[in-house]
């Protein structure tokens, strides 16, 4: 019981950590999703060289562990004269890393999208940008919602690595409390509950979107 009182007394550390995690997750996943869309657009509408470069980036990101990429940004970039604080490095890292994954997810839906749908738009005078925004975008995004939700959860969990870059998020808070008060199980249990809460919120939102999608006649993966 005493341990829980200790944790309760240190609650402000957890609250700050929770806010930091939530903030970095929302920012980075929003930017990451946007990066994914942008990459998909350029894969669709640029020449072979650009397409090759984009796929190189996407596949490159998929081959390295996130922590190594975060280290590269935080410890590696200063060697080139670019110094990022832990928060910025973490944000940039998560956005680029998961942006590549979002691109891959959307691309996998794009590949199986019926070509007739595109042809019908072309045959009625759609320009490239309109075709992307009105046809490709809604059909790839709405059909990959379960995968997008999964990737968001991965993004949230990867944010725990940022504690190593001195970002004071949930894991950092838990680690801090357990090392000061020697109560690792309870401290990390709190961290788990907080991550779980955010995950539930993500699932709630995604399920709502999936429901809307179903009503609108989208088929799901």
């Amino acid at each position, binding site marked *: 019981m005493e341990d829980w009182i200790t944790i309760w007394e240190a609650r402000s550390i957890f609250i700050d950590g929770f806010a930091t995690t939530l903030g970095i997750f929302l920012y980075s996943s929003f930017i990451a999703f946007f990066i994914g869309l942008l990459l998909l657009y350029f894969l669709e509408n640029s020449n072979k060289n650009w397409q090759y470069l984009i796929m190189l980036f996407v596949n490159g990101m998929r081959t390295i562990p996130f922590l190594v990429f975060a280290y590269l940004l935080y410890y590696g970039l200063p060697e080139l004269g670019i110094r990022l604080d832990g928060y910025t490095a973490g944000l940039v890292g998560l956005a680029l890393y998961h942006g590549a994954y979002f691109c891959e997810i959307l691309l996998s839906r794009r590949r199986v999208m019926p070509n*007739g749908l595109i042809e*019908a*738009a072309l*045959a*009625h005078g759609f320009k490239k940008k*309109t075709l992307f925004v009105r046809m490709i975008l809604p059909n790839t995004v709405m059909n990959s919602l379960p995968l997008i939700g999964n990737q968001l959860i991965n993004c949230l969990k990867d944010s725990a690595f940022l504690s190593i870059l001195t970002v004071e998020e949930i894991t950092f808070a838990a680690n801090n409390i357990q090392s000061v008060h020697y109560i690792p199980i309870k401290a990390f249990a709190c961290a788990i509950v907080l991550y779980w809460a955010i995950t539930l919120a993500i699932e709630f939102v995604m399920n709502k979107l999936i429901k809307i999608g179903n009503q609108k*006649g989208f088929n799901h993966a």
Partner: protein
Amino acid sequence: MPDTTVIRIKNLSKQFNGVEVLRDINLDIKKGEVVSILGSSGSGKSTLLRCMNYLEQPERGKIFVDNMRMGVNESTNKPMTHNQLAKMREKICMVFQNFNLWPHLTVLQNVMEALLHVKKMPKKQAKEIAAEQLEKVGMEDFLEQYPITLSGGQKQRVAIARSLAMSPDVLLFDEPTSALDPERVEEVLMVMKKLSQEGYTMVVVTHEMEFARMVSDQVVFLEKGKLIEKSAPEKFFTNPDAIRVRQFLKLDPQ
């Protein structure tokens, strides 16, 4: 006499991986004409149709739509940009064998979509036009439904309304009834007959002989990528010149 040619095809040839699928095709289609394109599978008739709106790009030959060269800038002799091509395609809309309705839009939205985002029409006007065209094809009771809830014949009628709404100069039909069961075929053909009576210029790739005979002004026959017969329906179906067409129609006793 004024030139009323809407589509002019000159010496058109097209290859797929070195196989010639269209060879030196010449065809003029006048305003208000209904032209049926017949031929066995693989004869190149769909490809010919798809060259007309440049969904397929021919290697040789020229296509003119309203006296404008399709796909190539006449002055510079360079390929058109995507946007220029899009502008030309507004005038020749296509109805597909597999309907290709946009699954994420309702029936009404499907018909409004190109009006709003290609023609940049105000929403109110687009809605009026869409409702009017859907009524013409008898789909006015399905406005808020999604394509997935419709039968094949209904989908195809919506697809026709979608093309009509653009008020194109030519309507292209790529085997519009081939994916339908016999009962649904009739409802789509009825709509197409009505359109022909209203003076729409139509190019129809089809296997419906009876329809071609009743509705067409010209019937053309493709065989291995060559246009081997082009005549009025009475002549085409009773006394065509090409032996292959006589075989196809089983006119001569075996």
